């Protein structure tokens, strides 16, 4: 089983390496001599229009090639290591065994010429800076191993071109594979500006045939054909002309030449076409099968530029005639005519095919696996529009945008809008930009220029109820509270920037919504009160957090840099949070000097609700543990302190954020508790400062001694009445929590004026 080898060039006269003229060749000759896997056979030379080259002919033995490799690379292969005396030409490695397989990562060579290995990924001027003959030899071994193990590239891509890159590229529309065979559609081409040297991008669009622009206008005919399906995995050389292309595809079982001529006849039928000098773009769409009989795995598209018109091809193929400057169908009238082969020599120039930008492609490029939810994005201001921009460009989610605002000049500092959009609804603007992003692929984004809390609008309410997820970027506390009150809404996640712009927060309901945004919000405040990061978290607030945190306020000073920074972080974090069914509280703090971003997360406790007199007390398991623990520590004495929280009078809810322990001057014994005042005013004022005045004094709590329930004693009732009267001065009821041996009870006092 002796192998047969190609012979290139002629033997170099005289001794090697003495007579070798190309430096790299001579260095390589030495490197081969001391390399265990290579054996030098001889040195040859050749001259062509590109100059003089020397060829070191070697046998290479690569132990890392497994014998049963699918491409059929042999353990022992012969190569010509070619070196040109032109410094800008990369060294070439030609496989000389005549049966050397066509594999991925080979350079384009003419049919019948020895294969040329494509060894390097980077351009030669970059490689040359670190190239040594020794590394070159190792690279050949690497190429052989990777190729034998089929780890280089996909197995069905065409061989690559070493000295040639197609000047034209074609972006196929996303629905090309689906509609190419549908006669109602034609591929329309849009030529983008010539970038010089004939380099140009052509963008395709599937258009209804009736709307198609005439070929003369574009100066190009375009013909796209669906061929028979073939089994994938073969690699082809580039054909030089229509004849070679036809032979290659015939051999694969996907002949096209008859279809081509039939299509040409059909286009000419009934039309008197003047002789013209327009060009042709031929696109062949080949369904690929994994194996015989399987479903179509994918489509292979190849495009070629032909320097003559379709009609001229028809003429060469003998299906048209030319008469007085016009093309006519040839009617053979039953007379046998020898088929002409003139079409075979029509030259082909390959056109690179580029994938259109589709959501799948976007996700692949962004490294995102999930296609994301069908969701509502409430609020597309500075933060919301940027988050949406990131998601849309990464193909994540299908979104309905809800926002009642319009673009004002100051928004341009932080919003994705442009000047031309001033005065337009933000929701419409963001959708419009999304349509511009997706082009012919199309955008699935909807826009509702209304308030997300406009539950009278069926449009709004339908969008919210039918979504799988609602992301709240309204930067108000209005929407999340309303959202929480709706039982048939999907899971909600709120994000917002802190007033200084240096921090941001993410609050998420759990997937089953047993914990809702309002309950998460109050636990977030407890974090602000008790965690070190809470000290400065809401700094910069003007005593009102939510609306001031938004950019609606003209005096808000937050740079677009910070919006982009937090938007980038939050868009990813929302994605992660949406994939995790648990409720979440996460905050991030940016250090504007060093650029460091720190993060904290809080455990979200199950929410507890207690209804008294039409008012819902909302608290949570974490807080219950806290008061029970305080009671335990004080036993056998009673203890107590102040309740912290806030009312939502719209929802008739009172949220208990935290309890304070007994001030130091309090007095408690087994029969009662008298809450002191030491430091209390300062503490409450700090509570208000940290929470932008949201959280404040609500009432009192105290514990009962061992063996007692949480029922109010007569003394407790007196205290409650006192509190009720005092707090009525603020128009609010008073609350009292009693912690007994086994239970906790909420008591409530309000003054009735009538």
């Amino acid at each position, binding site marked *: 089983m002796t192998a047969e080898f190609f012979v290139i060039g002629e033997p170099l006269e005289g001794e090697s390496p003495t007579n070798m003229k190309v430096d790299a060749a001579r260095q390589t000759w030495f490197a081969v001599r001391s390399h265990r896997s290579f054996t030098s056979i001889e040195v040859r030379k050749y001259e062509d229009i590109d100059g003089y080259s020397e060829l070191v002919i070697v046998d290479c*033995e690569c132990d890392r090639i497994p014998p049963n490799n699918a491409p059929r690379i042999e353990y022992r292969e012969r190569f010509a290591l070619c070196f040109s005396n032109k410094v800008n030409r990369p060294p070439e490695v030609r496989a000389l065994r005549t049966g050397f397989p066509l594999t991925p990562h080979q350079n384009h060579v003419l049919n019948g010429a020895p294969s040329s290995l494509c060894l390097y990924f980077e351009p030669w001027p970059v490689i040359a800076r670190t190239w040594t003959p020794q590394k070159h030899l190792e690279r050949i071994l690497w190429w052989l191993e990777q190729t034998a193990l089929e780890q280089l590239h996909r197995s069905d891509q065409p061989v690559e071109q070493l000295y040639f890159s197609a000047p034209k590229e074609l972006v196929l529309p996303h629905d090309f594979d689906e509609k190419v065979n549908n006669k109602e559609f034609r591929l329309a081409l849009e030529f983008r500006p010539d970038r010089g040297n004939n380099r140009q991008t052509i963008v395709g669009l599937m258009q209804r045939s009736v709307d198609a622009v005439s070929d003369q206008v574009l100066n190009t005919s375009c013909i796209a054909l669906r061929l028979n399906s073939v089994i994938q995995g073969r690699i082809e050389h580039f054909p030089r002309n229509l004849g070679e292309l036809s032979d290659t595809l015939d051999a694969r079982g996907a002949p096209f030449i008859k279809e081509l001529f039939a299509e040409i006849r059909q286009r000419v039928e009934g039309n008197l076409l003047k002789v013209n000098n327009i060009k042709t773009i031929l696109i062949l769409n080949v369904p690929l099968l994994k194996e015989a009989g399987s479903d179509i795995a994918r489509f292979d598209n190849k495009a070629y530029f032909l320097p003559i018109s379709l009609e001229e091809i028809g003429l060469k193929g003998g299906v048209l005639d030319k008469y007085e400057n016009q093309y006519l169908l040839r009617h053979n009238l039953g007379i046998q005519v020898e088929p002409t082969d003139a079409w075979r020599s029509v030259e082909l120039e390959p056109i690179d095919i580029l994938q259109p930008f589709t959501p799948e492609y976007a996700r692949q490029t962004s490294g995102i696996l999930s296609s994301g939810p069908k969701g509502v994005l409430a609020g597309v201001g500075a933060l919301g529009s940027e988050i949406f921009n990131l998601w849309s460009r990464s193909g994540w989610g299908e979104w309905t945008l809800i926002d009642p605002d319009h673009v004002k000049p100051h928004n341009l500092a932080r919003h994705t809008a442009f000047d031309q959009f001033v005065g337009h609804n933000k929701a419409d603007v963001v959708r419009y930009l999304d349509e511009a992003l997706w082009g012919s692929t199309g955008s699935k984004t909807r826009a509702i220029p209304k308030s997300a809390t406009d539950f009278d609008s069926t449009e709004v309410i339908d969008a919210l109820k039918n979504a799988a997820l609602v992301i709240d970027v309204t930067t108000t506390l209005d929407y999340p509270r309303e959202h929480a009150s709706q039982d048939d809404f999907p899971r909600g996640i709120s994000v917002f920037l802190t007033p200084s712009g240096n921090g941001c927060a993410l609050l998420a309901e759990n997937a089953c919504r047993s914990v809702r945004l309002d309950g998460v919000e109050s636990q977030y405040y407890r974090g602000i009160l008790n965690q070190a990061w809470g000290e400065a978290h809401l700094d910069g607030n003007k005593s009102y957090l939510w609306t001031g945190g938004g950019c609606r306020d003209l005096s808000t000073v937050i740079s677009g840099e910070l919006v982009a920074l937090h938007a980038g972080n939050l868009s990813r974090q929302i994605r992660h949070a949406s994939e995790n069914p648990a409720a979440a509280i996460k905050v991030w703090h940016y250090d504007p000097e060093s650029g460091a971003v720190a993060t904290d997360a809080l455990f979200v406790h199950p929410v507890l609700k207690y209804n008294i007199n039409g008012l819902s007390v909302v608290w949570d398991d974490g807080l219950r543990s806290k008061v029970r623990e305080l009671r335990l520590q004080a036993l056998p004495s009673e203890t107590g302190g102040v309740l912290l929280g806030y009312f939502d009078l719209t929802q008739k809810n009172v949220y208990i954020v935290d309890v304070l322990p007994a001030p130091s001057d309090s007095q408690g014994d087994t029969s009662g508790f008298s809450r002191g005042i030491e430091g209390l005013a300062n503490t409450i004022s700090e509570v208000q400062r940290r929470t932008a005045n949201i959280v404040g004094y609500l009432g009192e709590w105290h514990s009962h001694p061992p063996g007692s329930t949480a029922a109010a004693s007569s003394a407790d009732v007196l205290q409650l009445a006192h509190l009720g009267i005092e707090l009525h001065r603020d128009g609010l009821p008073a609350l009292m929590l009693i912690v007994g041996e086994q239970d906790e009870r909420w008591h409530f006092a309000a003054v009735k004026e009538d």
Partner: protein
Amino acid sequence: MHKVVFYPVGNGDTSQIILDNGKRLLFDFHHQVQGEDDGHPVIDIKKRLRDELDNAKRDYFDVVAFTHADKDHIAGFSEFFELEQADKYKGNGRIKIRELWVPAAVLLEQASNDQQSAEYILLRQEARKRLRDGKGIQVFSKPEALKDWMEQNDISFEDRKGLFTDAGTLARGFTLEADNVEFFCHSPFMKHCDEGDILRNDASLIFQIRFEVNGYRTDYFSVGDSTSEALEEIVSTTKFHKRLDRLQWNLLNVPHHCSYLALSDEKGDKETEPKDGIKELLRAGQKDAYIVSLSNPIPDTADMYKAIQPPHIQARKTYERYLREVGGRKFYVTMEEPNASKPHPLEFEISERGLRFLGRTITGAAAVISSTPPRAG
């Protein structure tokens, strides 16, 4: 992927099969004290194997096979492995042997002088202990002498029949279905003659180890020490049973550190002319096959042709000639790769793509940082 690894332990044998499912089989053990010195070409086999097991989070081998009890196949084993025979050989980080594989002769007293070392006696005691316990051992062949010894020592042969495996059958515990591998035992075999069955005392374990991954077969013919006479008998017996495929090999480790005596009785000047039966075995090599010699380097120099002790350059020449004839790849020597001053273990990989050698020459910076450069002044 399965792996077969041959270790550079001088003129001695240590090799390991690591199956894709994590099981490890060690064949022979040859520790040399000088290997503990970094500057010496011989590997510190204790350290090397311990590191490998540590990386695999194991403290045992599934199988340790001693192909026979010569010093160059067992040296140092009693300090490395946990032995069942006495508490002083247990613990202290000793490596456990789940199953010990030995030829029957190891259990008998009829060992040659060379075998009568202190370590050989420990090996014999260990094998006897495990046989008496009725577990943790597989004995290859069952000669009458061993049965007699068992009877004298009140060990029921009937109860322990399952511990014995005869030549011409597959070793217990591994199947193509479960492990992608089976061990066909060629030796030790019984020679049938008029006086009854005779066991060759000096016969070592010889397996044809067959891997089959997704239907692709790779055969490894593994020979401990053997003589041309014994190998010829294996060939003729295998032919007699019409099991020619059991002689095939994609990987062959040559007997006795490349001694000419495994090919013929005559060394020859330039090459050893193998006996006819041996030729058949060599021609059973497959395309892309490898041969491995577990031995000291075998350079093609004038004085090597006069060497009395193995390895023999004449034998190497013969192996290489037959390897070329069958379209094989290379003849590798454990103490030569990638160089004789600091050889590395030879690693072969076996997969559905067949057998390939994973060795890669380490040169340049990579080589410099993996060893101490000469002392600077």
